[in-house]
């Protein structure tokens, strides 16, 4: 299997889907001539033409609104937010319109919004957000957040083929840092299925996106120094999230740390913790712990950003306390 960086897996998914299905088209800011802010769509305009690779105005409400309109007439738009942070400008379209159409009219809305998310790139408060929790709370949207090239390609294909609006959170920090094997033949990663990225028996870290790698790192460290065996469960899909996989893991390891790069309070971790509490209380050998970023805007200064993010040291500290509880 060829080894590809995360970003190329995303490009490949788009490319293959556009080749496979003529209804698939892209729209976003600077995605055509410029090839996208991160070059995800470099070469797409030349290959697929300006009707299928549309450079839009700087107006997220317009991008999402246009995509929604196209989707309800049967096309399969993939809209790009240049940075996930800017989705706020299209918030009304997404939560009031897009998310409710199926419930109101019974129509499928087969569209994807790509959201380059996350920090660790010294982007400051406007270019580093993890906005998934806002949409997690909005019924009618599906949310996926891959951590590996394999999952990114498979989930993007699944998202494009899905009849519902899917928010595809992709991580700028992982774009070129994370490489992995990606099949060249067609495949999808089903939405709603988590993946055990590391097997373990002593505790489970439930996480998604960039912190999957932080968790794997920490688990590796702790296995070496303390001979604890920590499982890492990558949710991959946030909505719907894989309840079965969570329960299976919790019932086996009995201790849970929920980890996400998004700020802690009101984050998805709270919902996962509540779910575990309600459904696996008798399997818990320790209180469910959560770790997220500090409850502040993302700081610009690199040292502050490091302190802000839930890095390996913080994960190790939490894990140790959990394991020794």
């Amino acid at each position, binding site marked *: 299997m060829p080894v590809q960086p995360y970003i190329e897996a995303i490009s490949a998914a788009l490319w293959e889907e556009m080749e496979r299905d003529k209804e698939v088209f892209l729209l976003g800011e600077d995605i055509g001539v410029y090839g996208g802010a991160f070059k995800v769509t470099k070469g797409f305009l030349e290959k697929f033409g300006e009707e299928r690779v549309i450079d839009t105005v700087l107006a997220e409400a317009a991008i999402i609104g246009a995509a929604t309109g196209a989707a309800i007439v049967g096309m399969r738009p993939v809209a790009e937010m240049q940075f996930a942070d800017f989705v706020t400008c299209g918030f009304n379209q997404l939560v009031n319109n897009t998310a409710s159409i199926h419930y109101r009219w019974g129509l499928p809305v087969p569209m994807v919004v790509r959201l380059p998310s996350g920090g660790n790139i010294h982007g400051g408060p406007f270019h580093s957000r993890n906005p998934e929790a806002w949409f997690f709370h909005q019924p009618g949207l599906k949310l996926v957040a891959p951590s590996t090239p394999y999952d990114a390609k498979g989930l993007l294909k699944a998202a494009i083929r899905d009849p519902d609006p899917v928010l595809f959170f992709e991580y700028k920090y992982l774009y070129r840092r994370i490489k992995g094997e990606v099949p060249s033949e067609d495949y999808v990663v089903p939405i709603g299925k988590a993946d055990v990225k590391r097997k373990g028996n002593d505790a489970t870290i439930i996480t998604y996106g960039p912190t999957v790698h932080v968790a794997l790192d920490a688990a590796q460290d702790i296995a070496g120094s303390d001979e604890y065996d920590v499982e890492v469960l990558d949710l991959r899909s946030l909505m719907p999230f894989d309840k079965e996989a969570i329960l299976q893991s919790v019932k086996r390891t*009995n201790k849970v740390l929920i980890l996400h790069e998004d700020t802690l309070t009101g984050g998805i971790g709270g919902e996962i913790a509540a779910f575990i509490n309600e459904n696996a209380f*008798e*399997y*818990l*050998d*320790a209180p469910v712990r959560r770790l997220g970023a500090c409850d502040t805007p993302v700081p610009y200064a690199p040292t502050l950003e490091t302190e802000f993010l839930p890095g390996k040291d913080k994960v190790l500290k939490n894990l140790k*306390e959990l394991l*020794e*509880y």
Partner: protein
Amino acid sequence: MATIEVIMPQMGESIAEGTIVKWHKKVGDPVKKDETLLEISTDKVDSEIPSPSKGILKKILVNENETVEVHTVIAHIESEGDGEAVKEPEKDATAESAEPQPSEEKTEPAPVTEKSSPEQEKPKDRFFSPLVLNIARKESVSMGELENVPGTGAGGRVTKKDILKYIEDKKAGKTEEKPVEAFAAPHVEVSRGGVEVVQMDAMRKKIAEHMVQSVKTSPHVSSVTEADMSRIFTFREKHKNAFEKREGFKLTYTPFMVDAVVKALKKYPLMNASIDGDKILMKKFINIGVAVALENGLIVPVIKHADEKNLTGLARAVQDLAVRARNKKLVPDEVQGGTFTITNPGIFGNLWGTPIISQPQLAILGVGVIKKRPVVIDDMIAIKPMVYISMSYDHRLIDGALGGMFLQTVVRNLENFDDKQSI
């Protein structure tokens, strides 16, 4: 009108639950404040619980023979005034306060709570995670066992690994067998007729549990000796009438026995100790338990600091505890903390017995009937009031030599009783 909640009182620091023995009032009955409302039994004593308030017994929430945790609401009383209940201070029946209590009322009224009052704090037991409790339930590990599983988690918490290891060890026979349930008696086939099934009451269950546990804990060994009670016999004959007139109760032999034992314990303090794992706990106080037979069982009230009392003081203490034991007026503190026990198989005319140790003590001394017998003294036969004294003791710590010497010291203390003293 206000609804007063009657709650299961906590009759002692370590007591977590109580059993309702009997409701003295029916639903709809009027009750006076401090009138006996019900009788409860805890693992220490039976107690009568007075009504916390005047009013009508509206609802009984816990029926007779049911066991509930302390602080559980067991009944509702509708009070006529609505202020009284609120004013009633909540009391802990056994709060370790130094306040003197009126001697005629050792049982406190049941604490009351208004419905809106915040939940009372539960006693702080060892914490077990939901998982550990779940595993314990599935593997039939009792709470009693669980309390003793060594914990390696934070603050000594029992972790999943700890309980799994305990269960594994138990299956492999490495762990001490779980205490035999007192009721794991052979199943009695009732369908054949001729057998009446009678439910044990709470006290009987407690006694059964304790006896089984004691025999399992301590390898009992017994020695028997005899003592010439002439001096005490004469002394008692001489003083008993005056004593009864003055004190209002009969002078028995028990205080003399307690006195002789206390003096012997001072000489052999190891007899007054107890065992904690591989450690010996030497006690600097001497608290003598005196077994009292009740209509439906027995109870062992404790004379605290018996070494600080003279003969009259001991006689009063024995009398007070025995009377209150029969009237169910003992508080749990009075049946705890014994360091040595005296029992009296002689009371029914028997010569001697082999009693079972009251844990965690090390020995129990049984006094037989005092009877005139021919004895040989200097090759002559004399008639003496004699008594057989038996003692069962824990051979883990007390060997025959110590047990024997101790017993002989008791005999000497009895036989050389100072009959010039006053009482």
